[in-house]
């Protein structure tokens, strides 16, 4: 059963740009769904729209956003504030921006628990210390008394994860959780998220631009481009048999050890992401696609390539033919 | 950039800019549009009321002062004095302040400490007392007023130039310019200055308004422009004796001063929004 189901989510900005164009997501208990794309593809706007945290000037519509059975698409701001941090939590790229520099780690962790659970001061402290230990922090008592700036980037992100998990949420949205961290710390943090997920059955929506991170973490992957999900499938299917030219382009554009000989050229994707308005029809990738023809200016129907593996391209069977 | 401005900021730019522009234009054209010589006394026509009051004289739309000089002409020539003093003060204090501020902000270290000490010292100097001393030593003259104000009103330029330079100094394009072999003057004038200029323009409007007000205050106290020059502050001072019987003699230069300073401040607010908007992009 899915704990987070988003249907036909759309977000538009006041200047006429459509940032998210009818995407649907389905996240099951204990599952990790990766949402991949480059800057400007709409992946972060998607997460903010689900959390009800869009800035003023952005308009959201959705056929439905169901969180553990409750439709939150039309929930009041008051109800959303109750749910955020309790049933659905979020961690960001730069933990420093979401931690308050004026309060100790212990105060901030306890506050979440006291607000949502009405717990007493001591009970909340115990819970905070317990969670710091669970996220692999060696000396929780010391860390509780420290301020965010006294911690390293990796420790801060562990604190953020602990804070997100204080109330045992159903869903964790992790928006580029390791992009600001060093590679060794990145691996440690991702490993931690996986271990916690196994223990608690947490559902994780992992938003990232890093194909390596998403391949190793996600059970299923959705690739976003220009506000649409252009391809989705299990990680094995999507990385093993990418169908959309954009997915293929992304995979070919990163250097992978052993795949290229020294001096080989990487396959770059030419051009840049177009600005999409309401008048836009057809494939958003066609200006950068080597296969595109006039037919790509019409509305593209989704195709299937095996169970759960869908993509938005009318020409990619030829693409697969070329490649093999 | 203008697309991001709020309507009120746009209105501020238009209103403030056009009032200041009109004043500058009137001041520049004063020799051609003033109906009379502002120094010409006519003791037969003393203290004539302006056109809306009873007993006004044709040819003197704003009346005359206690020496029978045409009030409109004196007002127009007075605008020249105000703007001249304002402009010279801003240029002089701007050069001192921006020079010191950029030097301290870019070099850092002991030079920056020295600049901050000089700024602190300047802030502890009472302006009016210094003006009083200078006048006592040299006598009043236009040049003395401009030098006094110009040499004393630079601290805001210095502080703003210093902080904005410190922000720009660490941007990578400054390091890139150094690696390109650019000289220090080139880096300061071509790389740093254009990037801090918008902030300095805002300070400039503020200082212009302050200089104009201070000139009026100094002249009112008899420490500023010497008579018979037609300064607005001097006009207000000379009108003190008549203000209860003929209020226009003090109201007219007072309103002119108020309007000009208000317009400059409104323009400054609009420019500040413009700068902030430009940085938000």
């Amino acid at each position, binding site marked *: 059963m899915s704990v987070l189901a988003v249907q036909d989510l759309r977000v538009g900005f006041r200047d006429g740009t459509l940032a998210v164009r009818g995407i649907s997501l389905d996240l099951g208990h204990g599952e990790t769904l990766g949402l991949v794309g480059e800057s400007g593809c709409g992946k972060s706007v998607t997460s903010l729209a689900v959390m009800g945290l869009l800035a003023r000037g952005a308009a959201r519509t959705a056929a439905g956003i169901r969180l553990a059975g409750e439709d939150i698409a039309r929930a009041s701001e008051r109800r959303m504030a109750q749910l955020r941090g309790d049933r659905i939590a979020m961690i960001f790229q730069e933990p420093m921006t979401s931690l308050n520099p004026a309060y100790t780690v212990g105060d901030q962790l306890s506050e979440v628990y006291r607000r949502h659970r009405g717990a007493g001061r001591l009970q909340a402290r115990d819970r905070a210390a317990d969670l710091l230990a669970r996220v692999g922090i060696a000396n929780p008592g010391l860390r509780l008394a420290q301020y965010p700036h006294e911690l390293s980037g990796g420790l801060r992100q562990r604190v953020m994860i602990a804070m997100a998990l204080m109330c045992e949420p159903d869903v964790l949205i992790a928006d580029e959780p390791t992009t600001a961290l060093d590679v060794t710390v990145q691996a440690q943090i991702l490993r931690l998220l996986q271990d916690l997920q196994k223990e608690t059955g947490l559902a994780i929506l992992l938003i990232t631009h890093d194909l390596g991170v998403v391949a190793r973490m996600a059970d299923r992957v959705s690739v976003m481009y220009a506000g649409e999900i252009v391809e989705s499938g299990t990680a094995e299917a999507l*990385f093993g048999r990418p169908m959309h030219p954009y997915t293929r382009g992304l995979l070919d554009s990163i250097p992978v050890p052993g795949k290229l000989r020294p001096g080989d050229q990487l*396959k770059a994707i030419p051009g840049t992401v177009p600005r999409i308005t309401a008048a836009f029809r057809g494939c958003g990738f066609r200006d950068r696609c080597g296969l595109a023809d006039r037919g790509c200016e019409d509305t593209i129907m989704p195709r299937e390539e095996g169970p759960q593996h869908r993509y938005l391209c009318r020409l990619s069977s030829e693409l697969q033919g070329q490649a093999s | 950039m203008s697309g991001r401005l709020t309507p009120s900021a746009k209105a501020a730019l238009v209103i403030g800019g056009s009032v200041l522009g009109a004043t500058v234009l009137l001041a520049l054209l004063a020799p051609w549009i003033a109906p009379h010589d502002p120094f010409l006394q006519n003791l037969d026509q003393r203290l004539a009321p302006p056109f809306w009051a009873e007993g006004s004289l044709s040819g003197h739309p704003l009346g005359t002062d206690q020496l029978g000089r045409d009030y409109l002409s004196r007002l127009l020539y007075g605008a020249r004095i105000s703007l001249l003093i304002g402009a010279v003060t801003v240029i002089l204090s701007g050069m001192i302040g921006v020079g010191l501020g950029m030097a301290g902000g870019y070099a850092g270290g002991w030079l920056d400490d020295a600049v901050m000490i000089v700024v602190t010292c300047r802030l502890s100097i009472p302006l009016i007392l210094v003006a009083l001393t200078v006048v006592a030593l040299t006598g009043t003259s236009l040049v003395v007023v401009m030098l006094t104000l110009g040499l004393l009103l630079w601290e805001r330029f210095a502080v703003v130039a210093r902080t904005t330079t410190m922000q720009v100094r660490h941007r990578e394009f400054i390091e890139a310019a150094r690696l390109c*072999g650019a000289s220090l003057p080139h880096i300061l004038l071509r790389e740093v200055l254009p990037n801090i200029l918008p902030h300095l323009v805002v300070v400039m409007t503020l200082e212009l308004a302050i200089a104009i007000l201070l000139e009026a205050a100094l002249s009112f106290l008899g420490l500023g422009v010497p008579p018979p020059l037609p300064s607005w502050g001097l006009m207000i001072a000379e009108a003190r004796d008549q203000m209860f019987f003929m209020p226009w003699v003090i109201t007219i230069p007072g309103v002119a001063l108020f309007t000009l300073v208000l317009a400059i401040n409104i323009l400054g607010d609009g420019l500040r929004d413009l700068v902030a908007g430009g940085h938000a992009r």
Partner: protein
Amino acid sequence: MTALIDEAGPAVSVRGLRRDFVRGGGLLSTHATVRAVDGVSFDVSHGEVLGIVGESGSGKSTLARLITGLLRPTAGDVRIAGRSLAEADRRQRARLIQQVFQDPYSSLNPTQRVRDIVALPLVAQGDVPREERARRVSEMLALVGLDPAVGERYPGQMSGGQRQRVAIARALVLKPRIVVCDEPTSALDVSVQAQILNLLQALRRELNLTLVFISHNLAVVEHIATHVAVMYLGRIVEAAPTAELFGSPRHPYTAALLQSVLTPEPGKGIPRIPLGEGFPDPAAIPPGCRFHPRCPSALPACADASPPLRVDAGHLVECILAPETASREATSQVHAGLGP
């Protein structure tokens, strides 16, 4: 101009480089010395690409600025094509070595047109006539794959990839032989990163450039570098030809770094990195081997003495655990490790 270049020796030669920063030291606080780079020596031959990898706090960006002369070393010497950087004036230095910065949004002056940005090194030389400047700027823009008409634009009107191309054009307009690239693609999207890496590769071949390529992305370094040096807390702890280093890392830190690389291969899972929660802090460098508090295979001796430098056929390691197969005497041999 050509007299500046010594073709026979190494393109970049660094000896005993050290750089301290003083933090604090106001009226009421005490000085704290941060040693960002501590005793670094290496050579880069003409035409090579030296990749420098390391985490934040490793001193790799400080090293880049020491090599280009943006920072003065506390001790040690940088020689570019046989010339001491400390003795070169600003114009000579600009002809010898240039840098491409990390963030093309910050490295281009937003108030200047692209043509003026690219022309700046020529203007600074002081003896290049206006027509020649215009011609060379157009040539350079074309060489980095931009339409020379973009010269009229401002950086704010361009995409990140285009801006980084402008920055590369500016770095190459004086035809330097050595370019330091400090994280040149980490602010860019992956598809644009590939464009820039391809461009650097092509330019390197065409112009016979020597590159010092600094990055935290090991896959990128493996792709572009001929030799790799791994930095940890201000020191090079391991250096070797690229295939050698990635194939058989000898320092435990290098091994952990390589383990941490996440290739897009589903099913492989997240590796367990045995480094603990410590992090390298250049303000508090541990005694002995500076990696020992995080090292999974540290011995008691590691906390006491600095690790020996071991050199074996161009592969140098600073670790007590590294196999002691070769002599560890002359430093000249060390440098041969990265030299020709």
